[in-house]
Structures are given as C-alpha cells and as structure tokens.
C-alpha cells in the first residue's frame, strides 16, 4: 500500500468556452496517487491538461467530477480548503506576477501571515526560508531589481515558509535563462532531499530526468506513467505526442540505427558516457 500525499480518483475537469455549447474536457477521468516524499515530473504539450491538473491539486480549481485528496483532505471540502493549500504549496511560471510585496522578506512573510502564525515564528520561518534558497542577503531588496531566477527563488521561499508537505511547480523555469534554470532545479532537488514531495510540471526533458517518476499527459489523459527510464526508453512513443526526448535518448536511437546496442534504460548523459566506455 502506497503512503500517498495526493490521491486523485476519477478526476474530470470541464470548462465552458464562450459561445460554445459543449463544455471542453480539460481533464478526462484521471486517477493517480503521488507518494509522500517522491519527485514526480508531469510533461505534456500546451493544452494537454497538465496545468489544469496542477491547479486541481491545491483547490485553485475544483473537480467537475471525481475527487482529489491532499494530505487526507478533500479539496472540494470548503472547511478544509486552507489546510489543502497549506499542505500543497504552488510555484507558478511567471516570476514577476506572483510576488505580492515590494520588499523581499515581506513577500516571503505573506503566506505565514495569512495562516495567522505568531510574529516571532514568522520571522524565524522567513529567515530560514530565505537561507534555504540562498537569498538571505537580499531580504531588504525590492523584487523588481532582481533577476528572473532570483525572483523565482523568492517565490519558492514564500511557499517554503508555509511549511507545506508538498510543492507543485508549474513550469517554474519556462521564463528563465540557463543560469536561472540551474539555480531553480538545484533548489528543487534540495527541497526534495529534505523530504518535501515535489510535483514538477515542465517542458524541459532534462529536468524530468531528475525525477523518480514521469507522467506524460495528452488530451486530458495520462498517456505514459513510469520511471524516467521506462518512459523515455520509449522515445518514439514520447515523440508521438509532440514532446522531445533527452539528448542521450536521441543519441541512443541514432546509435542503434548504426548497429550499436544501447539499452533503453539509458536516458542521462553521464549514464551514456559510462555505458559507451564499458561497451565492448
């Protein structure tokens, strides 16, 4: 029996476009469990339903059909909606549009303040959270003077300060440069190592390689679900829904065409180098 933090049962989410009679099914009957302390990457092209799924995970959107449980709370239960949102924090794509305050530390304090936590405890949490994302020295600065990567780190600190069990990252690196992307990915990995459950929605396959589990969404349904090796091992299937595969998988395919055998479980650059060095 899996010890799960998120449990989705037959989730359906529909929305109605203006003028159109028929509602659109953004999510079509998904059932899914996310294990405590795990790192799950969700991939899919735009419109595949992955962002809608993310917003269903902390009650920002409520199911049209089926149920979502977070940390044991039903997201549709109004009495526990704040418990749901406190348990499952969320970091969004645009680093600019999610910071509330014009001062870094005040922004990080925003969440804990909403939870009604004691001032001295908020202070401790804010300082700790800023340390966790290596932004301690910037606590008195104004966010608009920071780089995209730095702003996104502040946004993460703001969620961490609420002490969530799980953090959902909705394309956190899409608008960042390579340096910013690296910073954010290393912080996500650290948070995961500290025991926080991570759900990462991304377009970048090399980020998904770090996860324990990869889920590919297509047309509102789960198209593939498995370890990164299991999923990316089936390169052609991944590509059939217009996604990329990590470079090593692409190279493996090209090598196989040339008669070099490469096992499907090889999906990372380092593994590939090791494997080729052992190749006889």
């Amino acid at each position, binding site marked *: 029996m899996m010890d799960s933090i998120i449990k989705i049962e037959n989730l359906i989410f529909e929305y109605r476009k203006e003028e159109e009679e028929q509602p659109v099914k953004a999510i079509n009957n998904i059932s899914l469990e996310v294990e405590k302390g795990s790192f799950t990457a969700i991939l899919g092209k735009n419109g595949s339903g992955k962002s809608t799924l993310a*917003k269903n995970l*902390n009650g*920002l959107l409520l199911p049209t059909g089926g149920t979502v449980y977070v940390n044991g709370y039903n997201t549709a239960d109004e009495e526990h909606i*704040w418990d749901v*949102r*406190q348990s499952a*924090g*969320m970091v*969004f794509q*645009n680093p*600019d*549009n*999610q*910071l*509330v*305050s*014009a*001062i870094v*530390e*005040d922004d990080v*304090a*925003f*969440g*804990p*303040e*909403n*939870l*009604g*936590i*004691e*001032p001295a405890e*908020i*202070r401790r949490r*804010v300082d700790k959270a800023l340390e966790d994302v290596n932004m301690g020295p910037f606590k*008195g*600065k*104004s*966010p*608009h003077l920071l780089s995209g990567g730095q702003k996104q780190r502040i*946004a993460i600190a*703001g*969620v961490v300060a*609420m002490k969530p069990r799980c953090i959902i990252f909705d394309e956190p690196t899409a608008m960042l440069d390579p340096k910013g992307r690296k910073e954010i990915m290393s912080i996500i990995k650290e948070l995961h190592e500290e025991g926080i459950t991570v759900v990462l929605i991304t377009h970048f396959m090399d980020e998904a390689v770090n996860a324990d589990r990869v889920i590919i969404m297509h047309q509102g349904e789960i198209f593939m679900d498995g370890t990164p090796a299991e999923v990316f091992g089936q390169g052609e299937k991944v590509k059939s829904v217009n996604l990329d595969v990590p470079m090593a998988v692409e190279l493996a395919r090209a090598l196989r065409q040339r008669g070099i055998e490469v096992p499907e479980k090889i999906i990372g650059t380092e593994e590939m180098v090791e494997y080729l060095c052992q190749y006889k």
Partner: protein
Amino acid sequence: MLRDITLGQYFPGSSPVHKLDPRLKIIATLLFIIELFIVDNFIGFLIAAIALGAVIALSKVPLSYILRGLKPILLILAFTFALNMFMVDGRILWQWKFLKITQEGLELAVFMAIRLILLIMGSSMLTLCTRPIALTDGIERLLSPFKRFGLPAHDIAMMMTIALRFIPTLLEEADKIMKAQQARGADFETGNLMQRAKSLIPILVPLFVSAFRIAQDLAMAMEARCYRGGENRTRMNEMKFKKSDYVAVTLLAVFGAVIIIQSKVF
C-alpha cells in the same frame, strides 16, 4: 524617462527615519502638508524646509534621488509658475503687449512653486523611507476605527500594497511595448494632439492586456498562499511605539508649535 518616477518608490535603508512607526510618519506627513497650506509667508516655508532638510539628512536618502523625483512634475510646476506670474494684477515690473509681470504675481509664483516642491518632496519622503507593507499596515490601522462604519480598511491597504509593488513592473512593461511598437515604425513624437492620442492605442491595448494577465496570475498566487482577506491575519512586524517614536512625537509637537507661533508673530 519612465525610470525617473520616484514618487511612491521605497528607498531601502535603516536610518532612524526608516525605523519610525509608520502611523506616526503618515500623521507627520499629513501635518506637514496641512502646514504648507496654512503658511502664508516665506519664514513659514523656511521652517518647513529646515525641518524637511533635517529629516532628509537623517534618512540618508541622497538628495539627488529625491530631486530626480521632481522631474516628472517640472511641467506642472512651470505651468503654475507662469500662470501666477502673468495673471496676477499689481505693481508692474515688466510689460510686453498684453503680457505683464507684477511684483505680486512674481511673489505668488515663487510662493506657490515652493509650496508645490515642498509638498512633493515631503510626501515622497514618506514612501521613500517607509516599506510599502509598513505603510499600508499603518494606513489600515489608522483607518480601522472607521471599519464599524463599513470602511474596508484591510482591502484598501492591500490594494495599495499591490499597486506599489506593480508600478515598476508596469512601467517596465510599458517601456518594452513602446520600444517594440517603435521597431514596427510607430511614431509617438510627431503629429497633432489627435494623432498623438491615437498613436497611444498600440501601447495602451497591450498594456491593459498585460495588466489583466498580471492581475489574474497574482490573484491565483495569492489564493494559493492562503490569502483570505484581513481576518485572522498576523503580521511579521508588529507595530509598537518605541522610544524613538516618542522622541519623534515630541519633535513633531515642537515643529507644530513653532509654526503656530510664527504665524502669529509675522
């Protein structure tokens, strides 16, 4: 050009002025503004200027930074100056056709200009030396007695916080859009008033679209961080009157007394 606007911006620092209780600073600023409007002679302005100068020196905000904030209002300043200078009757100093400058007009023009400059500098000191959150907290507290009459004190304060946070973001956005449209050959500098107003559409439409997008994103982010209005909300920095605040209250009282006395004497 858009970068010059310092009104409403915070200048980070840890001076005694920065550390004062925001409620006190708001009241002091209001008193300062009232003072500017009841003063009817230059000595009153001198006292106000000295007081303001002392506050600026204490705050360690560079004077050049504050003066830069005056740039956007230069036009208004010049306009009121000219209006007063030419429109007031009195002893004629200089005349050309229908234009004349009178001594009274000149005095009034200088008088009004000083008032306007002190007004802008004084009120920008409030925002420069007060963290936006503290400022809005202060406003919320000061307004809270009116809550029982249905005034949404918390919501007003939160709106102000957000406005202050997003002023620079929207200015940057406007700058970007303007450049992008210029690259498509848009011309904002020539043409008559009508043409110029029309040439703003390619900037204003995308800017509104951006503003709505930001509002939508922000609302979602705030909800995700458990925002549910002012109820049960705590603050990281609680407002407490400290020793330095009592000193400031005393100084403020002295300043008020001096103003009243001088208006009686001169």
